[in-house]
């Protein structure tokens, strides 16, 4: 952390790359990328929220909040259930769903926040699995949709129906893309600010040595709780959006392999706690995964997993962030050599 405030110009220059990226990303549809790939990017946006959620809390404190699948899943199911039993369309139910999911997860995880070590992680991993079993067995399956899940009209679909048929899908795809992109940008900026602030410092201190942090006067329980809340909000938002944009809501959203492993991978490969790394990795892996299908078809799961193993082993501290730092250094040296001419 710098002690002197850098000049306005310096600060602006620092933000130029990120702003450029954000603007460029928002312009993707204008380049003609539509249809399937726009969908993929929308999905990547939602997963970015999950990745940020995980990195902000677990990346710093090393408390693996493996329960993000539970939080996201509950949020998704609340959206679905609000439609099924109260007729509420997603436009209105997203916010209540997020609130309910946050409340629910806080209540459930509150006792374990005090618990140290692996137990928190294990517990958070099992909860979604138990929910899956409960939802798919009788008699709850009749009320909660069972394996087929709960259908609901997708976000803005009522507006879409007012358009001529040919324009409906593009309209929906574009609105979803921009909505999720906007939210992701906001979330990314917020997470970045938090992670590199005093608060973030306290989170990392807990991650390094919790007892030492306590001894230095940090109220670890409160910090953990706050961090957990922010993390849950992000995960809950992701879940609600997922339900609203990709119905029907099925137990797929609760299965860790679907909603936990990709963000976890992104966090690990990207560099735990760096925010930038995991965020970038998230997009890279999702797009690459789809590209792999075009390239090698049925072998893609195996190829993807192999790649994962190799990358994790090679650089446990995070490949992507490492590359990012190298790039930044290279550009900085280039720039300074130019300036000092």
């Amino acid at each position, binding site marked *: 952390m710098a002690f002197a405030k850098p000049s306005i110009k310096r600060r602006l220059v620092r933000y130029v790359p990120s702003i450029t990226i954000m603007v460029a990303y928002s312009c993707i549809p204008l380049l003609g990328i539509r249809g399937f790939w726009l969908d993929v990017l929308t999905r990547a946006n939602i997963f970015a929220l999950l990745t940020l959620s995980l990195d902000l809390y677990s990346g710093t404190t090393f408390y693996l909040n493996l329960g993000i699948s539970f939080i996201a899943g509950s949020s998704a199911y609340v959206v679905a259930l609000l439609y099924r039993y109260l007729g509420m369309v997603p436009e209105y139910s997203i916010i209540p769903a997020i609130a309910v999911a946050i409340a629910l997860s806080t209540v459930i995880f509150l006792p374990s926040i005090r618990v140290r070590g692996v137990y928190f992680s294990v*517990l958070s991993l099992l909860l979604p699995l138990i929910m899956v079993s409960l939802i798919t067995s*009788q008699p709850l399956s009749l009320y909660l949709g069972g394996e087929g899940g709960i259908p609901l009209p997708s976000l803005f679909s009522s507006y879409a129906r007012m358009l001529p048929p040919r324009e409906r899908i593009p309209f929906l795809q574009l609105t979803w893309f921009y909505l999720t992109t906007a939210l992701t940008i906001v979330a990314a900026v917020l997470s970045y600010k938090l992670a590199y602030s005093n608060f973030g410092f306290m989170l990392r201190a807990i991650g390094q040595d919790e007892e030492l942090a306590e001894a230095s006067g940090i109220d670890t329980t409160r910090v953990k709780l706050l961090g957990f809340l922010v993390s849950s909000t992000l995960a809950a938002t992701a879940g609600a959006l997922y339900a609203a944009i990709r119905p029907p809501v099925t137990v797929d959203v609760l299965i860790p392999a679907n909603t936990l492993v990709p963000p976890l991978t992104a966090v*690990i490969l990207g560099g735990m706690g760096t925010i930038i790394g995991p965020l970038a990795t998230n997009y890279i892996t999702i797009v690459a995964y789809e590209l792999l299908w075009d390239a090698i078809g049925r072998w893609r799961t195996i190829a993807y997993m192999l790649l994962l193993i190799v990358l994790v082993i090679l650089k*446990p*501290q995070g490949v992507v962030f490492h590359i990012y730092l190298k790039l930044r250094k290279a550009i900085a040296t280039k720039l300074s050599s130019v300036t000092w001419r």
Partner: protein
Amino acid sequence: MGELEYILLFGLFHSVTYLVFSLGFSLVFGVARLPNLAYGSLYVLSSYLAHALSSYAGLEMYWAVPTAVLLAGAVSLVVGELVVKPALKMPVSVFITTMAVAYIVEEVLNMLMGLRPVVLSLYPGTSSILGIAVSNHWLLVVGVCILMVISLTIFLLRTSTGRAIRAVAESWEESMRLGIDPLRVLRVTFLVTGIYAGVTGVLLAPLKAMTPSAGWSPLFAAFAIVVLGGVGNLIGTVVASVIYGLLEQAVVYFLGGGIARVVPLLIVVLTLVVRPQGLLGRGE
């Protein structure tokens, strides 16, 4: 036929198999301090290897099976070397890499053998125990399992390697100070536990038919048992296996199959909430 007899008998049958399987899992967990999510794959792999050896290499079953088990141990060793050892610094990484290995094995087996489950030869004959007609294969299973448990006990208590393993499980630093190379111990642990997982697989394949995704539910069960008994505590694992086996049979008998899926998960949750160190584990 009495309900009690049935639950007791088959509960114990399942308990011994869970015991052998969980002992391996517990050992790796204790030594490496990390859960080996690829453990279930070894359970599946040994049966497929045995099938391949007997169908394509023409080996007789009683040669194919032990070879397959040893091969499973070898695979476990390789996995440990390539995938776990380099990532030891970051426990989370091991979680991901071993899970990736498990998925790869499952995918490969799926592609090769798809919807064709592997059934190995059943030990012939039936006997009547407690008034229930039971396939003699179960007796073979129990016999082999008890042998495996006894050999493991002797191995851990009497041999120098075994003692080294226990030392490393206790504390890496201490054992290094005593001149023990924890990485070598890790290697042996992976080999041995791979064999134990493999044995469980080939013992049960004749009874249940093996599919590529069959490794996950024993893994969950082993996890529940290890947590229940206390991580690193082998006697705890024994006790927990018995409880688990009997409990599972009772639940299936009275409540049907669907609910039984939740049993291991609930056990873990309850244990962690009520008594996180398990029944016999040391406090953390």
